[in-house]
Structures are given as structure tokens and as C-alpha cells.
């Protein structure tokens, strides 16, 4: 039997190597995020007042959607080449490699989007004093996005066109994160204290870390049994 640490590390490394070799796929959601934000800047109008007021919502909604884009392929390749069924058969306890896979995915989506946020904020005339809070909400909120999304990705991996279904399954789960995330930035722009929102975002992410890997594990089994 593998030690838990070794199992986690081996899976994490495997995912990062695979991501580096298909970098374009990993970058697509980030490019989408950037382009969509640019379009908002063009479409809503360039008055700093209007744009800045809507910026928190725009940023968070687009982060949700780009996440969705990134998650669709999370298990697809492994499902097609058969490594997923081997992982389910051999990777006991399964929640560890699942957590490692999702953690690697978060590094290239959630974390990358967090780092991209200042640029987005700049384009949307987000007041500079709300920038720190924007980063903080994305950092504490995005793990939940990736983890809950992984459950949907695992459920729909066996379907050829699972994209829309994935959105229908996951987006409702994203609502609390969206409300507290965008709400915190709006409050910060008004100069209020946002620690409550940050704590809540962190709590949601912690909850997803403890629950989602087991749900993903069960969902993967179901998907493989149907194939």
C-alpha cells in the first residue's frame, strides 16, 4: 500500500506534468476571462463611475463562468484513455488522488484567476483600495468553485455533451460564493469591514474540501459503471 503522502504527491505531480504538456487547454479559460472582461468594459461604457460600481459582480460572474469552462475537461481525457477506471480501481483511498487532482486543477484555474484579478480590476476601474479585498475573496472563494465543480464534472464525464448539464448542476452551488464574494468587494468599496464575508467564503471552501472529494469519488464510480 502507498503512504497517503506518496499517493497525493504522485497524483499532483502527474496532473501538473500533463497540464504543462497541454498548456493551451489550461490557458483557454484564462484568455476567455480576460476577453470577456474587455467586452464588458467596451459594452457597458467607459464611464469609470458606472463600470467601477458593477465591477465586483462582473469579475465574480466571469470567474464562475471561466471556472466552468476549465472544469469541463477535468476528467474527460482520463476517462477516454482508461486511466480514470484504473485510478478508481487502484487508487485506494480514492479521495486522496481526487483531492490532488482537484488541487492541481485549482492551481491552474482558481489561483491563476486570482492572480489575473488585478488586471481585470484595472480594466473595470475598480477603486484601488478594493483591490486587496478582491484578491482575498478570490483566493478564499475559488477553492470551493473548483471542488464543487469537480463533483459536476465527475457526474457528467460519461456524457458526450455534458457541458450544459454541467452548468445547470454546478451554477446553483456557486450562488453562496458569488453573493459573499461580490458582496465583500462592494462593501470594501464603501469602506466597510469585510472580515465576516471573508470568513464565510473560507468556511464554504473548507466545507467543500471535506465533502467534495467523497462526492467526486462516488460520482466517478457511477459514471464508470454506466459506461
Amino acid at each position, binding site marked *: 500500500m*502507498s503512504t497517503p503522502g506518496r499517493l497525493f504527491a504522485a497524483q499532483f505531480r502527474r496532473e501538473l506534468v500533463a497540464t504543462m504538456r497541454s498548456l493551451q487547454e489550461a490557458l483557454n479559460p484564462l484568455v476567455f476571462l480576460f476577453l470577456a472582461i474587455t467586452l464588458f468594459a467596451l459594452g457597458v461604457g467607459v464611464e469609470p463611475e458606472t463600470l467601477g460600481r458593477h465591477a465586483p459582480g462582473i469579475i465574480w460572474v466571469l470567474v464562475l463562468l471561466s471556472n466552468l469552462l476549465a472544469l469541463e475537461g477535468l476528467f474527460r481525457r482520463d476517462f477516454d*484513455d482508461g486511466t480514470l477506471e484504473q*485510478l478508481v480501481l487502484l487508487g485506494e483511498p480514492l479521495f486522496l488522488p481526487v483531492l490532488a487532482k482537484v488541487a492541481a486543477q485549482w492551481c491552474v484555474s482558481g489561483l491563476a484567476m486570482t492572480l489575473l484579478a488585478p488586471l481585470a480590476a484595472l480594466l473595470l476601474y475598480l477603486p484601488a483600495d478594493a483591490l486587496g479585498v478582491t484578491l482575498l475573496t478570490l483566493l478564499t472563494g475559488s477553492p470551493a468553485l473548483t471542488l464543487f465543480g469537480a463533483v459536476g464534472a465527475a457526474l457528467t464525464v460519461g456524457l458526450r455533451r455534458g457541458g450544459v448539464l454541467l452548468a445547470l448542476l454546478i451554477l446553483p452551488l456557486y450562488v453562496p460564493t458569488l453573493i459573499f464574494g461580490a458582496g465583500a468587494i462592494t462593501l470594501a468599496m464603501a469602506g466597510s469591514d469585510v472580515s465576516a464575508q471573508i470568513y464565510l467564503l473560507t468556511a464554504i471552501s473548507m466545507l467543500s474540501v471535506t465533502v467534495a472529494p467523497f462526492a467526486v469519488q462516488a460520482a466517478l464510480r457511477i459514471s464508470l459503471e454506466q459506461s
Partner: protein
Amino acid sequence: MHDGLLQIAGFCCERDGRVLFEALNLNLGRGDALELRGPNGSGKSTLLRAIAGLYPDYSGTIETAESLYLGHRPGVSALLTAAENLAWYGALRPGDTEVEAALERVGMTGYERVACQHMSAGQQRRVALARLLVCAAPLWLLDEPLTALDRSGQALVRSLIEGQRQAGGAVLCATHQPLELADGRVLDLEARR
């Protein structure tokens, strides 16, 4: 469970309204090899997936030792090299064969650093076979292992199976081409109907 590696009793299975198995009984002990034959759609893969634990929709009992399943999908990631693929398997379930030794055994020395997407189907199949050595389990479940393999590859499969039997393991293998194993048993699913 005594020294049997696989005991199936009263296995019944229905798929898409067709009865595939009715009260199948099957025992495999140490050193046993069983070839599973039958036309397409006769349930060979379903039986193997059920034993592996990937298909729960059956009645009857299956008691099995730890097994390795090699299915239609080779379980080889195209983005990773042969060595990376096998190292991952070794981390999931460590056996006693090193990655290099396993690759040498399947005739893939020199391909350690080649990404599997640049390999032919037969070469990918050989990497998948090397996994049987890297992971090691008493029971092998092979679903048409000869697919895409050349003549020497087919001989390799036979010698791997013999090696597994000599080491005290058992092999259950679905195949269309006869394996001609020494005192291997054959279960023809068409003849059972």
C-alpha cells in the same frame, strides 16, 4: 476464502433486455488460466468488468483476490511518457518490479522518455502490459490483450501469462485468438447457450 483467487457463484446478468449470464459458476485457483471466448456482445467484457468492480448490475456472488484489470482502453495517458505512466501506477499500487525492468520486459527499452501520444497503438498496448508487472496482483483480468499487438507482442502476452501462473497467480483472459496455453481452460460463452 481458501486459496481460490476467484470464486463466482450463481452469476446472473442482464443487459439491455438480453440475458448474458444465467447462474454462471467459476473458480480460479493459483496457477490457473482461463480463456473466455464468445462472439461480440456475448458478455466477456461485462463479466470482466463485474469481477474488477466496475459493473455492479448483477446478481450472485463474486469473491475475488486483489486484481489488475486491463480493458479496451489501455489506461495509458497520451500526454505522459512511458516511464511517467508506469511510475504513477507504481505509486498507486507498488509491486516489486521497477519501471525500467518492466519496460525492458515488454520490449520498450529506449522509449522511457517518449510521450505516449507519439507511440503506435501496439506500443501503447505494451506500456499497458508493463503495468501488470509494475503493480502486481494475484489475479489478472485481461480483456483482449492481443489487440493491436504484432506477432512478438502476442508471444509476449503468452509469456507474461505463463510467468504470472508460475508465480502463483491466476489469469482470466477474454480473447478471440486462441492463446494455446499449457493446460489452460477455455470457457466458450456461445457454447453455454
